[in-house]
């Protein structure tokens, strides 16, 4: 097995360019993995248009009550901290809010509860040129994509090469889960007060998780850049700057990968890739 370097691309705010950066870095490397952990709204596949090699469904366990055995003692209903069970004439399950803890099956004194699998989404493995893509998609209506993300992360655990991981927005448990095994974190920020405020949040998160990190400033203009000011104030390394450029914007909004097109500033992504390899060594 060769090197295994997990580079996680994240930003508190949505729409700052996580997918743009991770897709282009993976394509610039050429022999890498691109991993889309935004299972609620995955977008990376729109750029790579991978040939899907494998698809696996992801399931969680939910209780099933055998009404012939159930005595109506309601211990399961009382136990469930998530209020996913109620009792009318029989036990009623609200599938969407069940956390699959298995508690109801444990507490049932007459073993009337067994657990069955419920599909919540799938993960897919594909290839686009030499880039291996791994992604997942949560079924609409489900509350949490974390089991799907765990499946994705398990799949890439011992793969070799550079692995670029595209995170969901925010700083909640789902992001924490994604950066747990990161070797390096790229924080993408845009030059607005919203951008700077959310950068501050993910900055706290990577500090809390004790991960090495650097910032990429996206959509840079000649005007003021509150995110840059924040980096300077906190002494955070800026590892790249991407200009606010309509040519790049147009490529990106049409689902094109800049480094695979004849984009004038492609050097930006290659030097960012080199920088990332250097700092994550």
């Amino acid at each position, binding site marked *: 097995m060769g090197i295994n370097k997990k580079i996680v691309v994240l930003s*508190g*705010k*949505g*729409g*700052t360019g996580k*997918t743009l950066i991770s897709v282009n870095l993976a394509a610039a490397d050429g022999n890498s993995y691109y991993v889309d952990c*935004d299972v*609620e*709204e995955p*977008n990376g596949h*729109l*750029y790579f248009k991978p040939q899907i090699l494998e698809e696996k469904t992801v399931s969680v*366990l939910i209780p099933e009550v055998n009404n012939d055995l159930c005595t109506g003692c309601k211990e399961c209903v009382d*136990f469930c*901290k*998530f209020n996913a069970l109620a009792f009318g004439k029989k036990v009623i399950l609200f599938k*969407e809010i069940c*956390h*699959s*803890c*298995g*508690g109801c099956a*444990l*507490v049932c004194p007459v073993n009337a509860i067994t657990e069955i699998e419920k599909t919540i989404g799938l993960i897919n493995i594909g290839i686009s040129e030499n880039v291996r893509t791994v992604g997942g998609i*949560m079924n*609409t*209506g*489900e*509350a*949490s*994509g974390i089991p799907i993300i765990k499946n994705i992360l398990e799949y890439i655990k011992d793969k070799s090469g550079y692995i670029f991981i595209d995170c*969901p*927005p*925010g*700083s*909640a*448990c*789902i*992001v*924490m889960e994604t950066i747990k095994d990161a070797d390096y974190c790229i924080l993408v920020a*845009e030059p607005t*007060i*919203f951008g700077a*405020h*959310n950068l501050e*949040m993910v900055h*706290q*998160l990577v500090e*809390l998780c004790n991960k090495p990190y650097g910032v990429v400033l996206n959509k840079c203009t000649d005007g003021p850049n509150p995110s840059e000011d924040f980096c300077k104030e906190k002494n955070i390394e800026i590892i790249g700057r991407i200009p606010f450029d309509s040519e790049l*914007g*147009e490529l*990106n*909004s*049409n*689902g094109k990968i800049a480094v695979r097109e004849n984009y004038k500033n492609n050097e930006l992504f290659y030097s960012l890739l080199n920088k990332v390899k250097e700092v994550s060594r």
Partner: protein
Amino acid sequence: MKQLLILSGKGGTGKTTIAGAFIKLYNARAYADCDVDAPNLHLISKHKNLPKKKDYYGLPKANIDLDLCIECGLCQANCRFGAIDYQDGYFVDTNACEGCGVCEFICPASAVSLKETVAGELFLYKDDSVFSTAKLKMGSGTSGKLVAEVKKQLLENTKKVEIAIIDGSPGIGCPVIASLSGADIALIVAEPSVSGISDMERIIKIKSVMAEAMLPIPPVMPPTRLFPKSTTFSIIFFSNSI
């Protein structure tokens, strides 16, 4: 009171910009920011007074009393969330713990108890208008529950208001579903890109699961040449009854 909820599926399409503009144009007296993972609306709201703060408790989390623990390992074996680790004794990873209580139930030595933990903070700005917002603690779960608290706080503090404007969060998961509950109209902000369209389609699907009615609008600043050639506007003008 009617609740107007602003959503997008994809992040960064301009939910907060639209919410801010609507609050101003409508002179809205009640509004809330339901993006508890990355709140932003407070950065542009004009309130002179400092907000009233309130701790938000998520579900209580497990705690192991090492003096009582007999190291049988049953808690770890039964935890579905991988929240119990061992290093010189069993301990709970509070970020992973979802507070289900299985370990407390299974422990033969009564060494596990569930303890209240602060999982975030609620803020209430109140002068001639009411603004409810919150911030989830780093890495916490249960954001849906906090969203419900934000909306409850707004409702409890407003009387006789015609409309409440609610800034939603990106995605389609639990915070979004929680913000949809009670909403009268959902407005979807879309951006002219392949990602924007894909994410909008997914959020529209949620409608059939949850919301009663949704009214998507065309993008705010449509630089038409950025639209993917394969896309027609018909997707954007997903007309619907309100």
